[in-house]
């Protein structure tokens, strides 16, 4: 059974000057215990919004619809009360830029203890001991917990932010661009840490990033998002070797590789605006294989292989007659 499942998740934002922005458009995915799923896409594709919806941390001008279950229990429909019981204890998140959001006037240890007390996971000496263990777990000596964030390097602060997210022993860790802005060697250290945590603690990881190679390195499965929806999902190996959505293929082609021989080519144009309704395929204007059907009909996510789905008319046998 899936540990975390999102079904037809939708998020709208009311804009200050009227109008609505449909940021997440019917996103569905599921993650099994101990699995690592990558959510990939470019800025504005809705990947961070989807994560915040799972945490119930969207701003007041957002409206959410759909279903999110943790271990079979619906958490979205129950509202803030149901969400609060799950947040941090079942589902925890490392926010984008978390390493720069630590409280500068509190010791690192007290910031890890705080959520434990708040959620009544541990108190007093017990909480302090747990905080030390968590620091050791992420590769920081327990004694360093007495220090302040500014005494830590960027990599250590990011480790501390991960330790904070783990304070209440969650089963699912959501990580939003956890290595962006880190040096390549520190990035490798953090990615290794996240991989080790999932292996050792049976933690389930949902990794959001714009960086395809990071997902290829860390995750077993990935979902590629474009204009608020998932356009392709499957095992990372399949996505690279047998992409069935042109966006996935073009995104890989736009990413330079250390030993890659082919030219890297950018994708022309830019994503559609999400404050207007989209007819047809949202990617068609930038696609190199669009045809007439793409203008009129929005493709839906179809199964194209084992655990592999894509939202492109090219995969639909009906298309052959049209094309």
């Amino acid at each position, binding site marked *: 059974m899936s540990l975390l499942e999102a079904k037809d998740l939708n998020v709208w934002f009311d804009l200050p000057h009227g109008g609505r922005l449909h940021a997440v458009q019917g996103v569905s995915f599921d993650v099994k215990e101990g699995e690592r799923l990558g959510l990939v896409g470019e800025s504005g594709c809705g990947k961070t919004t989807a994560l915040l919806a799972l945490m119930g941390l969207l701003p007041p001008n957002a409206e959410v619809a759909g279903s999110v279950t943790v271990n079979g229990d619906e958490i979205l429909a129950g509202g803030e009360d149901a969400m609060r019981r799950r947040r941090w204890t079942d589902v925890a998140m490392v926010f984008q830029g978390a390493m720069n959001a630590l409280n500068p006037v509190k010791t690192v240890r007290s910031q890890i203890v705080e959520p434990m007390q708040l959620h009544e996971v541990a108190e007093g000496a017990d909480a302090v001991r747990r905080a030390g263990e968590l620091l050791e777990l992420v590769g920081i000596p327990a004694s360093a917990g007495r220090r302040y964030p500014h005494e830590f390097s960027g990599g250590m602060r990011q480790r501390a932010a991960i330790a904070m997210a783990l304070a209440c022993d969650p089963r699912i860790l959501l990580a939003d661009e956890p290595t962006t802005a880190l040096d390549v060697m520190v990035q490798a250290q953090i*990615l290794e840490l996240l991989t080790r945590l999932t292996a050792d603690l049976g933690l389930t990881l949902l990794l959001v990033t714009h960086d395809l190679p990071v997902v290829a390195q860390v995750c077993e499965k990935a979902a590629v998002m474009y204009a608020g929806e998932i356009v392709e999902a499957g095992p990372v190996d399949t996505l690279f070797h047998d992409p069935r959505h042109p966006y996935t293929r073009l995104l890989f082609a736009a990413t*330079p*590789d250390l030993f890659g021989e082919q030219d890297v080519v950018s994708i022309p144009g830019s994503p559609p605006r999400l404050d207007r309704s989209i007819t047809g395929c949202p990617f068609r204007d930038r696609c190199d294989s669009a045809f007439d059907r793409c203008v009129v009909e929005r493709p839906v996510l179809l199964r194209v292989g084992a655990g592999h789905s894509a939202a492109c008319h090219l995969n639909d046998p009906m298309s052959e007659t049209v094309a």
Partner: protein
Amino acid sequence: MSTVALKTPDPAASPLLEVEGLVATYPIRRGIVGALRREPHRSVHAVDGISFTVRRGEMVALVGESGCGKTTTAQTVLRLLDPVAGTIRFDGTDITSLTPRAMRPLRRRMQMIYQDPYESLDPRFRVRQAVEEPMLVHGIGGSKAERRERVIDAMRRAELSPPELYLERYPHELSGGQRQRVSIAASLALEPELLVADEPVSMLDVSVRAGVLSLLDRLRRRGDVGILMITHDLSTAAHFADRIVVMYLGRVVEEGPAREVVRHPQHPYTKALLSVVPRRDPRERSTPQILVGETPDPVDVPAGCRFHPRCPVAEDRCRVIDPELVTTSPDHLAACVLVGSGETQPT
């Protein structure tokens, strides 16, 4: 289309940019207590004796982790910071100690492209004004009509086409990639010979990065522009640069043709850096050689080889010997006691 007379590039002539033994430092604040105690003035050697050249038509990538001195190098080369020692020659002229006044005519010929096109463009300037502004600053470009011609030409070369579509727009109406092209156009309007690009695409979306990098690539392939690109992204450097210069703690530890450095790295630091670069193909998951810790503080530079505390193959002598760059194969240099002595196989 240039209205400025340029020297005809002569391949046999001296390189466009020649840096030799460059040293740049930052003072460390002593604070009041330090001053009262008459502690000595100390400084950080952000760049500590580095040499490299950029030829016309060439793209050289300066790679390394934060704190390695790559941005300081770029700023010093452009004389935005004053070097402490070493020489910088631009098109054969020693510019190391030119006065600001003497530098002015040269500034037009060496332009910087910044990392963040969201910060580097004035939000109140239309594209037309942003591209025209540098010409006004340098007092070139002729009449208003001639300047407009040059603006349009520069935009065309920055591949903002058709230029008329963008002229009257404001930065907020443009995508990140388009903004970076506008700042490139503003540089190109001055007909520069050296472009220093500091992480030119790291703020841009993946799908448009390749376009901006290919633009820089085409600009230098036309032959009269040389590009010094600062990047932390080895995949980008491997793809677009002719040469890669790897820096660690203010020193060049390896330098060579891009392909050669990536495929046959000689220095243990370069080898480790390359091993942790995530690959596109999940089947190519390498065994990353993860170094412990982070680049040390340049205030406390380790004795001997600066890399020895983190080096996986360091020997006793590495604590005392500060290795010099030695040639390992034609045009390929590395600074490690283990290279060139037959102990690592030159490939």
